[in-house]
């Protein structure tokens, strides 16, 4: 039980920190949201490849995997796992394989939402 409570506290602390860093970058550097997302995914991939992000995931749980750096983590981890299994081809297959569920869900749900909902009126 206490293990569960700790997992929530850690998710809040780590996830909040990653988001706060993003906000400070937006305020201080005037980076747009799109650039922040690209930067965070890229950082996630690189930190994971350098072996630095796994420790953050071990502590933060969803606090490390839900932010976009976690998407980068899945891409890099997937690429490494598939290289270990299938050789060089794995560099191409691993990233998309590991992130397929999230990306496919985002595309499909968004498509359904766009078909079902009307654009809001600009006020």
């Amino acid at each position, binding site marked *: 039980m206490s293990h*569960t409570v700790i*997992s*929530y506290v850690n*998710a*809040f*602390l780590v*996830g*909040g920190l*990653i*988001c*706060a860093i*993003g*906000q*400070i970058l*937006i*305020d201080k550097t005037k980076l747009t*949201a*799109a650039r922040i*997302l*690209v930067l965070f*995914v*890229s950082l996630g*991939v690189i930190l994971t*490849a350098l072996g630095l992000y796994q420790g953050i995931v071990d502590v933060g*749980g*969803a*606090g490390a*995997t*839900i*932010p*976009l750096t*976690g*998407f980068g983590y899945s891409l*890099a981890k997937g*690429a*490494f796992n*598939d*290289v*270990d299994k299938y050789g060089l081809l*794995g*560099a*191409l297959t*691993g*990233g998309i394989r*590991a*992130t397929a569920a*999230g990306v496919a*869900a*985002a595309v499909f*749900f*968004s*498509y359904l*939402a*766009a*078909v*079902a*909902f*009307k*654009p*809001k009126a600009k006020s």
Partner: protein
Amino acid sequence: MQQVFTKDEYRKYVDKISPNSKTARNASRAYVVGGLICVIGQFFLNSFRQMGLDQDISASLTSVVMVFLGVTFTALDLYDGLGKFAGAGSIVPITGFANSIASPAIEYKSEGYVLGIGARMFIIAGPVLVYGISISIIMGIIHYLLRS
């Protein structure tokens, strides 16, 4: 003549003369909202783990649920309001990635199903996927070379 500020004008005035505290305020809002979104993710992750699913499957299912929530809140026109308050706290989590796809998909519906919905949904997700996937391939190749 004494100048009279409305509440809104006063807030803007204070923001202007105290940029550092504005940054601190925005960062703490991003921290709290982003942290809470991750706590929701942790709840689903713990739940899937308790059902006996392995770590990778649980993480994938959690992503799917969070994406679903992000798209749903976007479709109900609730996510933009959250974004105005939380800034990066709603942009950086995967719900924000889902929002970045759903929002233009809905908004550009009037331009058609192919070049409207189909193309515009990738206006932000496209670059994210291009750089994320490309860098992961490069890292995978380096990993391969270091292994052999």
